[in-house]
């Protein structure tokens, strides 16, 4: 009897591990920034390069930092979701235009709509490095005290907005 039970148990253990392995997402690297202050930047605005924006300007409000680029294919699928989130008017959305050409970026916003309160340019990807960006699009949720509370790698879907982002934003809005 034992002769049959032991392989069965071994198989089940293996199956459990393989099952866990199947559900892991190795491309999603945990961000070391969770609950850490936003890295400093002072970046030119996309539509007005002479004006600068830094995280300190956004203190006291909950904001999203969405990393995007006109060359990024998944950003295109994410864009309508951001547009509809922007229409809800519940959170400030800052776009980080990552390693992009400003002309292309502005044209993209013109034709697809602009969900961003402001977009800033990161022509050389340096701000990206400071935020540990490794794939566009990425989205950070930042609280009123300038702490990063959540990061999503990859395009935000309508489901993510409903299940993750909105509840978190509402919770953070209630914090002082």
């Amino acid at each position, binding site marked *: 009897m034992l002769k049959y039970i032991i392989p069965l148990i071994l198989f089940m253990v293996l199956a459990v591990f393989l099952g866990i392995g199947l559900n892991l997402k*190795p*491309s999603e*690297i*945990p*961000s*070391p*920034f969770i609950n850490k202050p936003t890295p400093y930047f002072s970046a030119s605005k996309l539509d007005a390069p002479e004006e600068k924006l830094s995280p300190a300007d956004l203190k006291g409000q909950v904001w999203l930092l969405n990393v995007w680029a006109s060359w990024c294919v998944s950003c295109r699928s994410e864009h309508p979701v951001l547009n509809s989130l922007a229409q809800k008017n519940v959170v400030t959305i800052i776009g980080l235009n990552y*390693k992009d050409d400003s002309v292309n970026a502005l044209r993209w916003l013109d034709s697809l709509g602009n969900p961003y309160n402001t977009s800033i340019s990161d022509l*050389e*990807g*340096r701000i*990206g*490095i*400071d*935020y*540990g960006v*490794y*794939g566009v699009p990425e989205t950070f949720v930042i609280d009123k005290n300038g702490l990063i509370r959540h990061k999503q790698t990859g395009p935000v879907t309508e489901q993510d907005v409903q299940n993750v982002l909105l509840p978190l934003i509402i919770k953070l809005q209630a914090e002082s």
Partner: protein
Amino acid sequence: MKYLFFAFFLICQSSYALDARQLADPIQQENYEILTKELRCLVCQNQTIADSNAELASDLRRQVYEMLEQGKSNDEIVLFMTDRYGDFVLYKPAFKGKTSLLWIAPGVFLMLGLLIVYVFIKQKKSTSKAKSADQPGNLDAEKQKKIRSLLDKGDLS
């Protein structure tokens, strides 16, 4: 055939991404090469930033280069990277609570394997000893006689 062999080795040569940067100081240059081979490209996760042609890898090489130029030490640069990308950016993660399983597990599995082999061999030996009592060479004289007589009789049928 000889040429084919040669061509094969040409293909097999490990490729390095091209944007050769040369630091003035040979020690720094060496550090640059060490660091870029220790840091993982996060886009193509099984390549170092020295190997990868991804844009991010090239940006990270630039970052390493600039920091070395500024006179930063290897440790400072590694810290800079792990602060931003986590331990994952290191090909050789530091030994700490979170990564201990990664370091210990292979040893544990090796021990487990050796233990299983040991138990298995031991079992095999004891069963083969028990069996060997029944083998023809070890029969006692009385049994041998019985077999002999049975065989002799068996010829008749």
